[in-house]
């Protein structure tokens, strides 16, 4: 479904302008093989996602591994062509642009990658890697490029003297700082951070998150922050979007979702946040552990894609796909795609036991802490 530009998401009053709008974005990767090499099947990595984002906001995008988060990030930044749908950045539809036309937009739209090891060229020196943004987009003297690169390195907490080092001479956290510096170089307005800390040591995660937060304030950045668990995202984002198997299942203000999650999948993710964050789990939340594997995105379940694993699933869930819409009692901007949204005080773990027979494969099981 499409979120109208009236701003169901709008937190701040005033401008109606969105920095970024995704409108029913779809990405199918054809599956190779089959008779005569022709493909009929497709990996439905992103299957109709809509959202919009205002300047200065941070949208946390959460979901299990393989649900299409990275793919969505690449569609937003124009790295993959969309199968259908539209992405508008500062009002301009980037899905219809050629690669060359996209180039000037790259300055204001950058990405921090998931893997701090894979995203830096192992055979190039850091100074050279960080001068790329300038050599691609600006014509500067060597001395000026060097000065800017060292400034950048200092800003993200690296020693400028390490200009001549190779990526292998840095630790994982430092490499992610390099990745952030590269994204920051051209002063973009939007940075998509694809799990920027999930490959890092917990003690270093906080440093990187703090750095991102500082940079946001300093450079007026808008972030899309991808993570596979909610605990990381809570600290950095003011809006959340929960993704399951190529679709958004719930979206809204972060605190609202933390306190009042309506989708059973979100509830199960929330019930799994680490002890330190337990304060945010209201009394009613028992630990819900989802069992069963994530179904294949090649052949997603009918109706609600979550139904084979959902503790609340009923017959209609397998038939009719729930729309992403505001549920009664929720504030504007809190949307849920579920026929039977969770209500406050509901014991989901019990529900799972009652409906285990109905749900068939992979019922959720309850663990009482």
């Amino acid at each position, binding site marked *: 479904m499409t979120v109208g530009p009236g701003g169901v998401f709008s937190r701040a009053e005033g401008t109606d302008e969105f920095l970024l709008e995704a409108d029913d974005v779809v990405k199918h990767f054809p599956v190779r093989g089959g008779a005569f090499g022709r493909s009929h099947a497709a990996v439905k990595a992103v299957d109709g996602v809509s959202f919009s984002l205002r300047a200065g906001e941070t949208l946390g995008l959460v979901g299990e591994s393989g649900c299409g988060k990275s793919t969505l990030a690449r569609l937003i930044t124009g*790295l993959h062509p969309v199968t259908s749908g539209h992405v508008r950045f500062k009002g301009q539809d980037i899905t219809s642009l050629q690669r060359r036309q996209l180039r000037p937009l790259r300055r204001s739209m950058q990405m921090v990658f998931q893997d701090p090891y894979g995203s830096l*060229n192992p055979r190039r020196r850091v100074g050279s890697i960080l001068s790329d943004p300038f050599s691609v987009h600006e014509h500067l003297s060597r001395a000026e490029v060097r000065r800017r690169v060292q400034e950048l390195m*200092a*800003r993200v907490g690296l020693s400028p003297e390490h200009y001549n080092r190779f990526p292998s001479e840095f630790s*994982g956290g*430092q490499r992610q700082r390099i*990745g952030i510096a590269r994204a920051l170089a051209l002063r973009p307005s939007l940075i998509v951070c694809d799990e920027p800390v999930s490959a890092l040591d917990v003690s270093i995660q906080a440093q990187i998150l703090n750095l991102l937060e500082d940079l946001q304030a300093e450079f007026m950045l808008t972030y899309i922050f991808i993570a596979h668990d909610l605990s990381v995202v809570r600290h950095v984002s003011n809006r959340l979007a929960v993704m399951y198997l190529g679709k958004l299942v719930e979206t809204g203000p972060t605190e609202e979702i933390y306190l009042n999650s309506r989708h059973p999948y979100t509830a199960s993710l929330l019930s799994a946040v680490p002890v330190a964050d337990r304060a945010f789990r209201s009394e009613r939340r028992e630990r819900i552990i989802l069992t069963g594997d994530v179904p294949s995105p090649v052949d997603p379940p009918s109706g609600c894609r979550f139904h084979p694993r959902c503790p609340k699933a009923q017959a209609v869930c397998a038939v009719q796909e729930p729309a992403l819409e505001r549920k009664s009692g929720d504030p504007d901007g809190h949307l849920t795609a579920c026929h039977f949204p969770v209500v406050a005080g509901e014991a989901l773990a019990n529900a799972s036991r009652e409906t285990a027979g109905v749900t068939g494969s992979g019922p959720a099981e309850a663990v009482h802490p």
Partner: protein
Amino acid sequence: MSALRADELEIVEEKDPELNEQQFESRTPWRLAWRRLKKDRVAMVSLGFIVLLILVSLFAPLLTALIGHGPNTQYTTRGLSLSGIPVGPGHNGFLLGTDDQGRDVLSRIIYGSRISLEVGIGATFLALLLGVVVGLFAGYYGGFLDSVLGRFMDILLSFPILLLAIAIVARFGPSLGLLIVVISLFSWPYIGRLVRGQVISLREREFVEAARALGASDLRIMFVEIAPNLVALAVIYATLLIPVNIVLEATLSFLGLGVQPPTASWGNMIAEAQTGDLFTVAWWFLVFPCVALVLTTLAFNLLGDGLRDALDPRYGRSHISPAKRVRRAFRVRRTPPAPEPAEAKA
């Protein structure tokens, strides 16, 4: 951008428990590889031999002047016995003896090394240039371009090189330059295919995507991002291709299609030596050029193997005994697109 925040900088570095200066210091890819190579005695001996050979060929005029025998001078009185038999090694001041025309075998081998290295390294360099560029385009773009270029390389690799070389040399007349071009023409697909394969996996790497996200052009991605990652592969296979090309030169010269007498090349020395049956009594002027050829190709092969281990530790074969590696080097030599080595005929 904000000014340098030195105070914050220091705190950050102290806090980072992952950072361990000693651990990360000098972990540049090349330094690591060199450290591994230094431990590999077989490779280091081979490297020493190759360096020596290069010095010998560079200073060939000086060396032969020191020896006192030019490569093409026929020492008919001192160099041949009264019945016309070549002088044996160590006699009359000929360290490796003389050949059927009374020429100093050592001086000729020294000058022959120039030809071997010129052709071996020259042809390999050209092959590398062509192979890397074609492999980059085929691997990066894939699709139709890749199938066309791939088919072309396969055809070239399956061609009877010698037949074609004979035709080309017959048409244009033998010359060193032509020799280099002809040899490189048939050895580049070998590099091209390897590079193509490597590029296909490199283009999927995240740093390529990062470059794309910055708006880098295809050419920039190919030559700035991907190419530096091909250097190790290129160095390894160039080292393995040089001996193949040296043998190819020797073969063509042996067949009279390469370096023309009286200019000395190991190939034409072997050819001349085995024409008569003089070598049955004066074995040295046949055996020593063969030994030079075998040692040189062996050294390059062993160095190439060592480089492969050092640059790509996944191979990790340095624990294999030197004898086994020498045997393996002989096997490697026959796989690339080379005809049967010339010395096999002799």
